[in-house]
């Protein structure tokens, strides 16, 4: 998750060299987007048992990490923004979320395919994954931190704070 936030940060800083209106609040928005799919991790903190018992059916929070779930989350976040920011900041949130899904697509999994259904509910197809890293690999975080640091350094003149 830290790597996702760092990459979101780096992407937004880089985008800032082209987009004059982009300030630190927009960088934050891209970082929020980069963490949006991990709303599904709520299952680590709350049990879905009471909900399943009440509804009499299985529920699966991983739906929030599917393409459709992420899209709905991004739309909800976007609609909660002030109207002048909605369009442009919404795209940054979406870009952050997209970067999360793409980076997760490279994760090493025991099935050799992506860890979840990226295209669901359009399709349950899980593309093959090259298995480049595990989410707990320290070097991945270190690499993302380096990218973020370079992005900060390279753009610090243009945008002194953020």
């Amino acid at each position, binding site marked *: 998750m*830290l790597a996702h936030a760092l990459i979101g940060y780096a992407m937004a800083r880089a985008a800032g060299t082209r987009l004059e209106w982009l300030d630190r609040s927009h960088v*934050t928005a891209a970082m929020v987007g980069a963490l949006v799919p991990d709303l599904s*991790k709520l299952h680590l903190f709350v049990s879905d048992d009471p909900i399943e018992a009440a509804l009499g*059916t299985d529920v699966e929070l991983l739906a*929030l990490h599917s393409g459709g779930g992420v899209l709905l989350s991004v739309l909800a976040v976007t609609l909660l923004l002030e109207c002048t920011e909605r369009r442009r900041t919404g795209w940054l949130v979406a870009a952050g979320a997209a970067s999360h899904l793409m980076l997760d697509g490279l994760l090493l999994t*025991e099935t050799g395919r992506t860890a979840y259904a990226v295209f*669901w509910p359009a399709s*349950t197809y*899980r593309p093959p994954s090259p298995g480049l890293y595990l989410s707990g690999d320290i070097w991945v975080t270190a690499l993302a931190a380096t990218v973020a640091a370079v992005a900060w350094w390279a753009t610090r003149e243009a945008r002194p704070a953020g």
Partner: protein
Amino acid sequence: MAKGRLARVVVVVLLVVCQFGLIVWFGNVGYEGSPYPGTDELAEDYDAYVGRQVVVYGQVVETDPVTIETEVDDDSLVRYRLTGLDSDVEEGSYVGALVTPRPDGRLTVRRSVVRGERDHWYTYAVSLAAGLWVLVRVVRDWRFDVEALAFVSAGGDDRA
């Protein structure tokens, strides 16, 4: 303005309802959203999955033979013995594996991902840190305008 605001709230509520619908729907796609049966299904009816492919995940409680322990649906703990695991594991490691259950109760490993216990907790810790970092930035850079029912950028005079 008030009308637009109301419409927006209605749409956000609708999106949340749809999101909830997805969560229920996904719980009923395949094996709770997974293409393979998992430890819950295996614990329920082992024999039904003998010779098929199942994904298991658990913590190593014994290394010779490699045995993993996992919690299943009814909150009980079940243990599985793995054979053919090609990577070294220590007690406490977490193993995710695509396996084929054998009639003798062992699971033949086809592919596996092993993660040390430290890495497991490290992932939790840095993820929590990331969540807090972004939360702090949101609180600093955005504020919720109750009047407009929207987040507004707090960086008005601090563009940077």
